[in-house]
């Protein structure tokens, strides 16, 4: 049990938070004058535990990636807002349906075998064959992977797909050595290419890793690491405060004020691609009237909501995208509460309060109970009666997908598949979208998304996303409430920590720790 080293509090210079304006970007610990000690080990508290026995198509891939074990062919650089080389040095579209990736030379797996086009193809094909395929890399999107020569892997798609390099940045497409696939389940131990080698696991508790002495990406600054699986947010907050953990990911809003005043702890915040949203059932009255939807939007006080329920750990939303996203409209503004306008719009819509409307607040997000109450109060002011029902998401989903609901509070990660919102915009808002909770259907919108999916120029594609976002906003399809922030806590002796809003990359070769 490590004790708090209060005597060194004077050295606890807060790490700098740098939010760049280019893409979603995390904060980075800055220069503190401390010197890295390469004998140090680090402890990271992660918010999820692996459940699928390290299957790469599952969310376990996130844990292997953040731990510095699993690496992919490409990597999305949040700061640059683009896909950059990783295990592949370059790539090109050789035909409308084919992409060639050149495999980096001189890379060895942690078991000493060479990274080759054959091993890469075998690894990617094993993900393609999964019973529950990864969203980013499934047979519906990728029809085949094969090695065309010693250092080239060809990825074939059923239809032209300009986003293949983005898909190969998904952690689910991480590359493991052939020996990882010889048993009944995937075994990442000693079979990654990353800076850290997993050496032992305590089931549902932690993963221990040692430095990879032969890492292709340069000298690894830490001797090793322990990634703990701590699902309770308050516990993660306590551990970084006591010094039991050096980095705690995803700190809950309720613990922020305590941590922000704690010595030797820095709280890092970054815009995340998650927006708490009040989904409205556009498919049935009264929500099938755009004036009614706009009336509800005018009734809400989003700034008060962000300040009260989220205690400042979220920012009022200006539409379906966070302002930091490169496809977000720079003109988007947070709607201001205007009760007179709301009442006029209600009158225009011909609304009469013949029945109370229901908000489903899913219990998995504890703050939604309070959010629902604030909204209920706001809508009461314009004469719209609302009842609140707390439900588990799984029990609400069948009715919501079937269109048997009024409103539901939920949130979505727009970049859950790849670092591009095409999956979200397609699934959630196109007429045939597989997750169209709003039951919104608009030909103009569908045409925009179809065009975007075919557009290979990033800038052009982002412009189309921007247009689609404006259309959703103009139609007030949903009420986008607050942009949630990714919040990590880091002790001051951690050096070179770059916050990733999606928690894909936490431990890298550069991550270091000062001696105690």
């Amino acid at each position, binding site marked *: 049990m490590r004790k708090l080293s209060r005597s060194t509090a004077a050295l606890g210079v807060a790490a700098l938070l740098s939010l760049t304006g280019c893409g979603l970007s995390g904060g980075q610990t800055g220069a503190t004058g401390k010197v890295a000690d390469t004998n140090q080990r680090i402890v990271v508290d992660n918010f999820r535990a692996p459940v*699928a026995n390290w299957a790469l198509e599952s969310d376990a891939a996130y844990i292997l990636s953040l731990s510095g074990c699993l690496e992919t062919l490409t990597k999305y650089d949040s700061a640059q807002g683009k896909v950059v080389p990783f295990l592949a040095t370059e790539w090109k579209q050789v035909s409308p349906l084919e992409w060639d990736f050149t495999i980096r030379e001189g890379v060895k797996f942690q078991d000493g075998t060479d990274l080759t086009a054959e091993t890469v193809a075998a690894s990617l094909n094993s993900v393609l064959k999964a019973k*529950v395929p990864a*969203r980013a890399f499934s047979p519906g999107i990728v029809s085949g992977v094969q090695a065309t020569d010693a250092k080239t892997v060809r990825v074939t798609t059923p239809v032209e797909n300009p986003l293949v390099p983005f898909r190969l940045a998904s952690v689910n497409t991480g590359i493991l050595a052939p020996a990882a696939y010889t048993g*009944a389940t995937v075994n990442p131990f000693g079979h990654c290419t990353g800076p850290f080698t997993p050496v032992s696991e305590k089931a549902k508790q932690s993963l221990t890793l040692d430095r990879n002495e032969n890492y292709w990406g340069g000298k690894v600054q830490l001797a090793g690491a322990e990634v703990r699986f701590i699902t*309770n947010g308050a516990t993660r907050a306590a551990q970084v*405060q006591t010094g039991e953990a050096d980095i705690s990911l995803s700190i809950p809003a309720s613990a922020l004020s305590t941590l922000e005043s704690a010595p030797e702890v820095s709280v890092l915040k970054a815009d995340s691609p998650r927006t708490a949203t009040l989904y409205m059932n556009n498919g049935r009255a009264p929500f099938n009237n755009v004036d009614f939807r706009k009336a509800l939007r005018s009734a809400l006080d989003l700034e008060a909501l962000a300040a009260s329920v989220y205690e400042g750990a979220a920012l009022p939303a200006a539409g379906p995208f966070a302002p930091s996203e490169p496809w977000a409209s720079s003109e988007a503004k947070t709607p201001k509460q205007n009760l007179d306008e709301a009442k006029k719009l209600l009158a225009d819509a011909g609304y009469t309060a013949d029945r109370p409307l229901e908000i489903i607040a899913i219990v998995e997000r504890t703050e939604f109970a309070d959010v629902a109450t604030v909204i209920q109060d706001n809508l009461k002011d314009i004469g719209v009666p609302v009842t609140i029902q707390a439900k588990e998401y*799984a*029990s609400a989903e069948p009715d919501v997908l079937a269109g048997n609901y009024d409103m539901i509070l939920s949130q979505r990660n727009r970049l859950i598949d790849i670092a591009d919102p095409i999956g979200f915009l397609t699934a959630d808002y196109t007429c045939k979208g597989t997750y169209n909770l709003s039951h919104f259907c608009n030909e103009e919108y569908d045409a925009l998304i179809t065009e975007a999916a075919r557009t290979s120029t990033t800038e052009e594609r982002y412009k189309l996303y921007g247009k689609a976002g404006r259309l959703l906003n103009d139609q007030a399809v949903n009420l986008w409430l607050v942009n949630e922030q990714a919040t990590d806590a880091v002790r001051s002796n951690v050096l070179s920590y770059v916050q990733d809003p999606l928690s894909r990359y936490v431990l890298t070769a550069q991550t270091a720790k000062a001696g105690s």
Partner: protein
Amino acid sequence: MITFLAKRTATLVAAVLLSSFAVFLIPYVTPGDPVRKIIRSRVAGDVVDEATVQALAESLGLNDPLPVQYLRWLGDFFTGDMGLSHISRTPVIDQVLPALGITLSLVLVALGTAVLVSLPLGIVAALKQGSKTDKLITTVTQSFIAMPEYWLAPLLVLVFALKLSWLPSAGWNTASSIVLPAATLSLRPISFFTSAVRSGMIDALEAEHIPAARARGLSHVQTVLRHVVPNGLVPLSTLFAVWFAGLLGGSVIVEVIFAIPGMGRLLYDAVVNSDIPLAQGGVVVVVALAVAITTLADFLHRMLSPKVSGALA
């Protein structure tokens, strides 16, 4: 005695089967599609295409009629196979046994602590019945009932981990890891145990054979030690068994707050994620153990109490 053992064995088998069937039904009687729950637990996503759902359901045998699924599980169980987890595809037994070991350690330490604390408190309270000491012990221990684990656990972390830095705030790594969770779990049993010991002792003190013992020349201390304390322990043995059985699967809150991978957390996750084989396997083990413990407590009760012994025979 043979009749008693036969009845107990039949009870155990019936309890195991009934509880496993109830757990088997949970994913089907609660809203939401079990297969989507399984998929969501693997990929934490909301978008699941129908083809994936159907393929997974088929491969896991979830499209078969419910009785067929249950009887298949039952058949495997009687051949010693608890099946594979729907989520991790690893043998259920490999997940249940480590979790059970952890929970058993935690519960034993918690209830052992409760016994060590409540025994002297209950004895003193009974011997000083009606005094200020008795009232103080009774009031303080009774107040423990109103301290739920979700309130007490963060409080203990705040004091002993954050403020004093004496103990780890969470985890299951060193011997010190057990202190705070065991303390959290022991507080309410202390209340019930103290009350039980006190009541048992008072009943024993008022029994007819106590004046007779004193008349035989036994000192007060000898009388208490030989004739009162053993009788005071009788209700404690039953209570201990009941709490032990209850905490085997019921320590979820403490296990979540202190990041302990025990049975409570395992069963909770299994039910939430529709991991039916894991839930069934876990419940079977917990129920069997709970019935065995309460049976053992009945034997103990019989040994300590001649009246009960007579009734059982």
